Structures are given as C-alpha cells and as structure tokens.
C-alpha cells in the first residue's frame, strides 16, 4: 500500500528531469523538498505542511520510489527517516549526496542516539531531528538551509 505518491495533478512549473535549467516561470523558484519516511502518517502530514508554507514538496513512503525519484531530478532539501524497511536512511543519504552534493539532508528519527547522530553528521547531514518533533522545528531547519544556500533573498 502506498497511499502517498507525489502529486498526480500536473504542476505547471515543476521542472521535469534533473536540474532542468532555469525556471521558465518569471516567479521566484520555489525550494524543492523530498520527504522519505516509511510511516505514511509522516508523509501525509509533512507534504501539505510544506506546500502550504510555500514549498514544492514530494513525499514517499517507499525507499525504492524515492531513490528512483532522486535519480531523476535534484532536490534542494531531502528529509529522510533513518530506520526503514528495505533501505537504511544513511544509505539513502549517501546516494543523495553522491548524486547531488549540494542537496542538504535533514534526518528525522525515532531512535535518536548519539552514535547515529554522529554517524549522520559525518556523512554530511545538515540537521538531525528526533521524532516526535514540532512542525515549526523542521521548518526552521529548512529555512536555515535556504539561508545558507542563498535560496532566499
């Protein structure tokens, strides 16, 4: 069961394929976020949350699908769970970084230990958030990324 596939409605200005050049729209490009968590509830809540906050967001509860998607296109931010059926979040993180080194990754996990945190940061994670977390907290993380990457004026 995979109730949370990305928007099936065609998004007028969504860039197709990896880094498809400049945004055709005269409007400022929206920061893009990919969310991966095998708990569907996390996807169901984070996706609309970020969309309403002005982001372009896609959410996946199947690691394989998320993997296929990051091979297709680049995202500014990836938010991923650590412990999932089928794929370790750290492995996913490695893949993302290999494909697109300037994508920033936020790790969210219900099993936060110092060890996993350290490991994540060594692999280049931008932020490490323990579940449960406040919505505002993860939004702050994304805003910090935007600021550091100069994605916002």
């Amino acid at each position, binding site marked *: 069961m995979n109730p949370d596939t990305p928007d099936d409605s065609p998004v007028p200005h969504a860039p197709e394929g990896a880094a498809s050049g400049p945004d055709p729209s005269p409007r400022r490009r929206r920061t893009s976020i990919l969310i991966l968590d095998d708990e569907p509830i996390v996807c169901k809540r984070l996706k609309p*949350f970020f*969309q309403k906050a002005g982001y372009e967001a896609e959410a996946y509860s199947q690691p394989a699908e998320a993997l296929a998607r990051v091979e297709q296109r680049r995202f500014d931010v990836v938010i991923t769970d650590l412990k999932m059926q089928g794929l370790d979040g750290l492995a996913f993180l490695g893949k993302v970084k290999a494909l697109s080194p300037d994508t920033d990754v936020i790790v969210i996990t*219900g099993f936060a230990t110092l060890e996993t945190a350290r490991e994540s940061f060594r692999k280049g994670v931008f932020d490490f958030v323990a579940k449960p977390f406040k919505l505002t907290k993860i939004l702050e993380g994304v805003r910090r990324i935007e600021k550091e990457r100069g994605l916002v004026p």
Partner: protein
Amino acid sequence: MRLPVWINPRNWRRKKPPVPFSVLFKKFKSILERNNAILELIADMGDKLGGDYIYDRQYILSSCEKLGDQVFKLVSDLSFLCQRKNVALFNAFEGIQHRIAEELAGRRTLSRTDHILPLAELTHDLADEGGNKMASLGDIRNILGFAVPEGFVITAGAYFEAMEQAGLRRLAAETTRRLCADGGQDLAEESRRLRQAILAMPLPKGLVRAVEQAAKQLSGNGRELLAVRSSAWGEDGESSFAGMYESVLGVAAGDILDAYRQVLASLFCEQALRYRLHHDQCAEEPAMAVGVMPMVAAAVSGGLYTYAPLGEQDQAMVVSAAWGLGKPIVDGTAETDTFLLSREPPHKLLSADISCKSTQLSLDPQGGTRTLEVTGPARDASCLSDEQLARLARTAMNLERFFKRPLDVEWAITSQGDLLLLQARPLSIRPRACALAPDAAEAAREAPVLLSGKGITAMGGVASGPVQLVGEGEDLSDFPYGAILVSRHSSPRFAKVMPKCRGIITDVGSATGHMATIARELRVPTLVGAGPATRTLRQGQEITLDADHVVVYEGLVEALCRNELVREDVFEESWEYRTLKRVLRHVSPLTLLDPQSEAFRPENCKTFHDIARYVHQRAVDKLIGLAETHQEITQGAPRKLDTRLPLGLTVIDVEGGLDPAAGPGIEEKDIRCRPLKTILDGMTMTGMWETAPVGVDMGSFMSSLTRTFGADMAHPARLGRNLAVISKEYLNLHLRLGYHFTVVDAYLGGSINDNVIFFRFMGGVTDLTRRSRRASLVAAVLEQFDFVVEIKGDMVTGRVKKHPTRAMLDKMFMLGGLIGYTRQLDARLDSDEAGQRHLETFFNRLAAVKETRE
C-alpha cells in the same frame, strides 16, 4: 506479570529488619521524581493531539511502554516505602495496562457495552460505538450545539452480539476472506446469501427489548414515524461509503426490528463488498451501528453544499429547498428553489432561482407519508426567507470549519421555524480551484506577513476573518460572527464565543491550558503566546491565521483557506491520532480527586494518572508518619520551624538546607534553603496573609484549620503538622492551610536547565462553582507567571522550568503570596466578576510589594 522478589511477604515477617530512614527517604524522593516524570510523560502525550507535532506509530508504542514501565516502578516503590504488597494497586495497574495493549493491537475496546446510546451522549470519541454518521451528528448536537432530531443509536457492539449469536459473524468473515482471495468471484450470489441470512436472523432478547422500548418512547407511543439510518464504521469518514448503505424512512415503532435488520444487511450489499475488496480492507472487520430518529414534520427541507459544484462559482455555496419533507429533493424528483450564497460572511445572496412547486411530500397523521398539492401563492413563493438563508449559511460554515471538509448538509425547518440538521457528510466533489496545492504555496509566499515564528500552536489549522480585540474582562455577548479573537491572555471565558469565532490569537497563554483544550475540542485554530499580537493587529483588520506554521498574514489568503478544506487526510482521522486519543483515555483523566473520600482507593484507579495520584498521596502520608513516630531512625531528624505565620511546619533537612549551627528548634533565619526562604518571604511580605475576610480573626482561622483535618489526621500529635523536605536547592512542601492542600516541589539554583517548580493546589469545602472559580483564578495567576497550567476539577497544577534562578525565585515569592491570598478565598468568590476583581487585587498588591523590594 510477576511481582518483584522483595514484595514477597515472606521476606517481611514481623521481624523485618528496620530500614534506615535515609533509605526510605531516598525511596520517597524517587517516588516524587517518578511521579513528576509520569505526569510529564502524560502531558507530553496529550500535547501530541494538538496538531503541532509530527509523531508516528513508533512514538505511540514506545511512550506507552515507557509510561507502563514507570508506573509499575512507582507502584513498586510505594510497596517498598510502606512495606506492603499493594495487591489491589498492582491489579489496577495490570487492568489499565491490558486495556492499553488491546487498543494498540487494534482491537477496539468499545468503551461502552450498551446496546443503545442516546444521541445526547454521542461524540466522535464514541465513533466506534455509534458509527461515523451518528457520531458526527452527536458532534453537531453536543459539541457545536446545533439542533438535531433527538434519537438514539443501536451500537456496533449490538451488531457484533447479534451476528455472533446467529453464527453469522464467522460466515461474514469467511465470505469476505474467500472473496478477497479469489478476486470477487460469485460476489453477487455471496452478497445475496449473506443479506438474506441477516434479514432472517433472530436478535438477542436483551437487544430486542432495549430497541423496542427505546423506539416506543421515541415515537411517543407509536404516534410518530421513525427514520432508521445506517451508521457504519468508516461511513462518511476516512473511507467513503457514502450512499452504499440503506436507510429506511417512515418506520412505525412496531416495525423497528425489521428496519434494523434491513440496514444491517446492507453492510454486505454488492457495492459495499466490492468497495472493500478494491480498497484493501479485507483484513478489517466491518460493523454497522444504526441511528434511529423521529421523522421531522418539516415545513421546508433541503440540502446545502458548502461549495457549489460549479467551476465559475467556486466561492459560493448552494442551497436547494422545497416545501415539506426532504426525500424528493434527495431523490431528485422534486421541483426545488435553488440559491447561491457567498461563502464569506455576511453570506450575500448571489442568485435565487424560484421554481413552481406543484406538490410536496408530507407526513400522514395516519402513518406513512403522502404527496399533497401545493396551492395558492406558496407555489411560486420562495420557501426560504433571507434571514433563514443567512442562518443556514452560518450554520453550514460552522460545520465545515469543524469537520474541515466541504460538506453536504441535509436540513429541515419546522413549522415553528426551528432549524434542524439531519445529516452532514463530506462532499465528494472538491472545489476545483484548490486541487493545485502549489497555488497555496504561492499565495503563502506572496502575502504580507504580520506576525511570524512566535507562539505555540494550541490547535492547528487556517482561519481568516476580521480581528476582534478583546480586553480583560470585556463582555463577550456581542462578539461578531466570523471574527478572529485577539486577546492579551488566554481565558476559558472564550469558550462561550468559540462557535462564533474562526480563530484565536493570544499574546500569552499555554497550549495545555483550559482554553486550549476547548479550542481543540471545537477545532478552532488557536495560537497562544504570540507575543505582540494585540499591539500589532488592529481592530477590524482582515487577517489570515495559519496556526500550523505560526504565521499571521495580512488580508484574506484565499488559497490557503481553501487548501485547508482539501487536505488529503484530516489529521484527526488518522490511525495515529485516533489510537493515541483512545490510549489516552486509559492514561490521562484524573478520576481520583479527593483523598478524604471513601472512594480514594486503589481499586478505583481507572487511569495511570489515578495511580500516580494515589501513590503520591500515600507516600506523603507515609513520610509524615515516619518522621512523627520513628524519630529514632531518622538521621536528619525532623525539626519544628518557628515561623512568623502560624504554619505548623516540620522540616526535614536532607543536605545543607539549614544552618549547621542551628539547634533542635529552628527559626526562619536558620534556613539556607533558598526556595523555602523565598516562599515564606512571599507569604509574609506580600501582606496577602492578612486579607482575611471581616469577622474572621486568627482564632476562627485556627478553628477552620482544625476542622479540615479528616480521619487520617486524627492522631493529636499530627495536628497542624505541615511538612517541608529541604536541601540547599530543593524544596518539597506539603501544606494544608484552612481548606486547601498545596504541594510545591522546587529545585532552584543549579544549572538553569535543572531549575523547576511544580505547584499543585486543591481542596475546599464550598460548592463546586466557587471551587472552580478559585481554580480558574489560581490558574490565571500561574499562567501569568509562565506556568504550564492544567485544571482538573478543582485541582490546579502548574509547572515551570528552565528559567534563570532569579526569575524562578520571583515565582516562588509570588507562590507564597498566592498561598496566603487564596487561603480564605472561596467563601467570597460569589460571582465570576468577583474572581476577576480578586485577580486584579492580587496582581496590584504583588506589583506594589515588588517595587518596594527592588
């Protein structure tokens, strides 16, 4: 679960080795710590319902495990402290633990075993018992306060019992399994077989009696006809079974059982079986609750869509109406008037299409219904007045905000002009314009931001409307419909206007306070602690509040509001939300309130909170007892503290709380414990203690003091003994004064992160209203001083932590004043205004003292 070895009574024969006081005291302290940890965990879990947090299944499982573990250890600690087995308490613990495990395993423990529940008791909390449709109607009646036909529901539990007894529950499960396995082969035939079996099944005797009796009563001894409606699990809810199940209208009370079976059988109609097959619901057992209501003798009936299904009119709602009963409208066979109204207040009429209504369906006084001819001017007249239309529109928008979905509302107006709501279900069409979420994103990016990032989400959601500034103690009876309430403080008073207001923003306040709880219940988007809201927002200014993102935009951000209504999943309907809420029913309510009452027993512990409360009380009693009777075994011997006020305080110094040079009789100057010293200063210096009412001198105060000690304080040596356990930084204070029982637990002066004050206040002999007035007053004071406050009955708890030591000491000083001030207060709290007045008096005096201190 096995009891720990040391609880084995054989280890504790008479010749038990004396346990040193220091060991017992350590146990006592660990009980207090664990107790606080448990209460915090409970509060934490409760917070997660507010919509501010992301959590998953794992969180629910692990917090239940952690909590169960802590409560078990707490009970064990008490057994050790009291050197008793506490079998009853362990049993209570295991019962609660078991019920939680059942909820987590997905076996809905129906919290009510009744065959029948009156609509008056139904809300979404009982959606398992009453089914979705009737639970929604219960919300409309009992939470939102709109009129619906009175009635009752025959529960899902009754369905299971009937099916079980007829041997059909297994047949249904096997049939479903077979259909799922072979992809729906012979579905039509299987459906027919199952339905026929249900139509012919005998019903349990008890159920028959209950249903017949309730139907007879509801129909006024058979004078009125009944509507028998399906209310299955999931119907109109997370999965849309809309329209698949049967409802039987115009049923005579004598025919109720046949109608009941007919609705039950529709649970297995072809369409429903196919739906379940294709929606991956093979593993879930379906259930059918059935609603029974009188047919409304309607003068006008109709339907309302909160979003008109018209592309070019996406800001309108549409009303269709006809004379008489609503059935022909639903069936689409009647000539109807059609009105388009603006979704925005004051809901301007956009168009009215008045048709010629030649016939109407009416109730036949002889029974059944009949079609009558409409004569005279009524034929071509509009069946709704402007006023009625406006009322319908307001009502529908209230429902929509609560259910967070565009709705299809069925309504009726009686000849007396009363508006009754018959049903509200999610509209399956969705407003076209909001299918594109990026619209909302764009709108959010471009709207001017008035406030951002400051505040706590007490209830998530988006709301827009004009600002209505509400001052302290201001009359709320004229609060305008559809406005957003903006106020300096949060207040339970706002509960009254919540059905009218679209959102709430306060400068200060807590997400766990009383008001926040009500806002969550009514699903009003609420932001508390938003800082300069009252200064930034102007009266009448149009704003959009996005409580999820803690942002207030200028103007109406239309796309954002629309987006709110098309969330793929309403959080409140998710498995996680519902399960956590169900689990919390066994965790957080406090039912064991009065330690003086007969009912304060382990057998009566219904929740983990009850157990924690019980253990705490017993531990304190025990420690006082130990200190009194076993002075020889205590190391830090209890000493009487001579205070300026008559507190009767016994002090146990654990470490560094007293001047080492002090003798057995100690005075305030010997105190080195800063929290104790400060709270005593607060009691004395604020002058609050002297505010006794006229005619009550110290003598009568002392007599009120003696009066309050109940049976467990009968030992004369104990009289007037209040207890403080202290160290240099720590204070644990148990104070009975007059009618009140106060607990303060504070640790101040270490690192800022360890600073914590816990305050609990309860008791009182006056009537409940006054007691709850006092509770609100205490809560208001605590909230003003940044405490996270909870009110349960007449018990108020407040917690504050991680403020700088200086600020924390100020709070201790204030608590001293508060304890003094409230000492005699209930007798004088004869009105809500008096409460408000006292609040002001208290703050004024405190401010005055503070100035002279500084």
